[in-house]
């Protein structure tokens, strides 16, 4: 196992959040773009979801790129919406709707 794509906060026939990580030595090969594409397609086609959404840290350009390549749209920036190690960060919200 070199990484993972999850669907979370699953609401049947409606929506789910998508999240993912990949071991660093596999970065830069387009693996995550394909993995996210396949899982999103699974969510829409098999699970019959209408909306798949994701959050990224503003500094995480790589993750944003994965979503953009897969047709996710940026819906907004949620200010100070996450805490990590006692610090507040903005959260960028992305979604793909069919």
């Amino acid at each position: 196992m070199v990484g993972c794509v999850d669907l979370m906060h699953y609401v049947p026939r409606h929506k789910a959040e998508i999240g993912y990580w990949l071991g660093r030595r596999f970065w830069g090969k387009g693996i995550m773009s394909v993995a996210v594409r396949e899982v999103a397609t699974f969510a829409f086609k098999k699970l019959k979801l209408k909306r798949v959404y994701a959050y990224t840290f503003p500094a995480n350009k790589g993750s944003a790129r994965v979503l953009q390549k897969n047709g996710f749209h940026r819906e907004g920036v949620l200010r100070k919406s996450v805490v990590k190690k006692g610090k507040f960060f903005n959260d960028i919200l992305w979604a793909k709707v069919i």
Partner: protein
Amino acid sequence: MKYVIKTKRFTLRPYRKSDALSLARNINDPLIYRYTLHIPYPYRLSDATKWFKKIIPEYRKTRPTCIHFAIEMDGEVAGCVGLSNIEPRHKTEIGYWLARRYWGQGIVPEAVKLVTAFAFKKMKLRRVYAYTFVPNKQSARVLQKDGFKREGLLVEATKKDGKLRDEYIWAKVK
């Protein structure tokens, strides 16, 4: 923590079991149902008692997950401003409703302003956020008046009457 805020026109205070009747009477309105997600219509006395079982124990907790302020006017529960999904020292969602006969008097803007200030000052939160349905201009106005900023439009993010709806997310941060 003491959850009472008094103003000239109304009092914000915790719900009590004895509010069931006035709550059920004042919230039972299709126009309140229309733009909210968790308020049934018709609203029965049993909906009020079920609701109280969920929210009244929270007032006593040191880390409550929700705090609902009843808006008391003329001896009745005329509305509510609620904080939900509270994450201690971080954030909370805010929501509200008001009996139709009190609309247009600036009651909700005043109440939301007070509860938001309470969330920042007393509860030490850094973010208060709200969702509104796109056509609900009045609710958006309430938030704008208190300095909430629109952060985004969530496409088909919520379901109402079996239909998917878009919603705005608003927030005020400190």
